[in-house]
């Protein structure tokens, strides 16, 4: 229903954070994304669920140009993602990403991980960058580890640092690509708590996750993908109580015991 509203001719709508229109993508002969349409409003929290290989990671990786789409249009904060490097970098400055395997830089301290991009990409001076980093490290409750190296922290701590690192660029949108899938079970909670608090602050978030509790708690919409298509899109309460599609039903019965 929301995607119908999105058909308005004006390409730059300041209330729209992400707009995906008829996007398709192939890996060789294999089609990973098939006519994806999705509109995300500013401040909206979207959870993307679906079996592995359904294209959900590929879809959010297209949103900051880590993957290129071959058909259709993607606009992020009004900037269209194309082959143009400048445009890709414009988008990347405004879109933070949190990866499954954290991807922290092991040769840099926690603080340096957080100040690197603000200093080198946004030309912030060191004092300014360290101030911002301290603020966000405090926010993810890890400020006391600022001078350690990533390898000295637990997985959950590393993932919280990765979230802080993304926040230091003051992004307008945050993408999460299975942020808790590589964590030991006892560390999932601390990362989810951090994500919940971000959601409460009004951050626009797109989360690929299997954490259905998180989806219930914070998502405005759940997107269910299978075979490279969005096959169901609903509020979490409706999606969990009353899934429409057979494949969604099968998926939910497998994931919720």
């Amino acid at each position, binding site marked *: 229903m929301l995607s119908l509203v999105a058909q308005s001719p004006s390409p730059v709508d300041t209330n729209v954070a992400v707009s995906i229109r008829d996007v398709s993508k192939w890996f060789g002969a294999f089609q990973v994304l098939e006519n994806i349409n999705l509109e995300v409003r500013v401040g909206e929290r979207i959870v993307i669920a679906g079996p592995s290989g359904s294209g959900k990671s590929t879809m959010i990786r297209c949103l900051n140009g*880590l993957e290129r789409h071959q058909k259709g249009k993607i606009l992020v904060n009004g900037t269209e993602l194309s082959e143009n490097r400048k445009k890709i*970098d414009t988008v*990347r400055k405004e879109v933070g990403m949190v990866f499954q395997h954290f*991807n922290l830089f092991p040769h840099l301290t926690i603080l340096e991980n957080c100040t690197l*991009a603000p200093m080198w*990409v946004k030309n912030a001076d060191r004092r300014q960058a360290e101030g911002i980093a301290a603020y966000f490290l405090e926010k993810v409750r890890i400020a006391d580890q600022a001078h350690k190296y990533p390898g000295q922290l637990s997985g959950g701590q590393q993932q919280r640092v990765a979230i802080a690192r993304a926040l230091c660029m003051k992004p307008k949108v945050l993408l999460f690509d299975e942020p808790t899938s590589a964590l030991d079970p006892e560390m999932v909670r601390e990362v989810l708590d951090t994500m919940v608090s971000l959601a409460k602050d009004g951050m626009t978030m797109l989360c690929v996750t299997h954490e259905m509790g998180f989806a219930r708690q914070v998502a405005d919409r759940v997107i269910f993908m299978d075979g490279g298509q969005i096959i169901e899109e609903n509020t979490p309460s409706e999606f969990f109580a009353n899934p429409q599609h057979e494949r969604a039903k099968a998926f939910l019965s497998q994931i919720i015991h």
Partner: protein
Amino acid sequence: MIDLLSNYGVIILRGFLWTIILVTGGFAIGSVFGAVLAILLVSKQKLLNWLARSYVELIRNTPFLIQAMLLFALFGIMRMRLEPLLVGLIAIAIYSAAYMAEIIRGGLASVSDGQREGARALAIGPFLEFRLIILPQLLPFVLPASVNLLATLCKESAFLAGVSVAELTFSGQVVITQTFLVFEVWAVIGALYLVLVLSVMAAAKRLEKKMTWLIPGR
């Protein structure tokens, strides 16, 4: 011995200096060429990839002396009269490029794709990505291996005497034909190689200890 050194020391020293020049010069050129080859080795362009791979395997799996002799013969066939020292330098460059290519390729592979994606997601461009993220993680891997290569080159370069390049071993042969002091001359030459290789190793140790110069902004 003192007679030997006072009368022929200059010849030996000149050979020693040429060995240092040939090895460092050849290694420097080879490293640049090797870096290009390494990029081709990881490239998705099938033909370029195959060409680079063939080059590396050809050089790494044949004796250096044979390569040097072939190179001299090749210039001969082409009727190019080049200074033997220059041909020696080219031979070392060709040889070290193949090994450097493998070393750098291994270093590149040791930095995971996640690191590159982490950098890209933060809008860090290709140049800064290499300087800030890849290089500092690559060098601790590449540096010790290339020092080993440099030490090997110091020793392998002795084969260039076989194609009359006036380096250290060749100067030894020259002195022996004039003095017939076979054992003494080779002992001096051997000692000079030892000094050279140990100096390379010592310099590398100091460089490795202080890798912090690699970390941006420290």
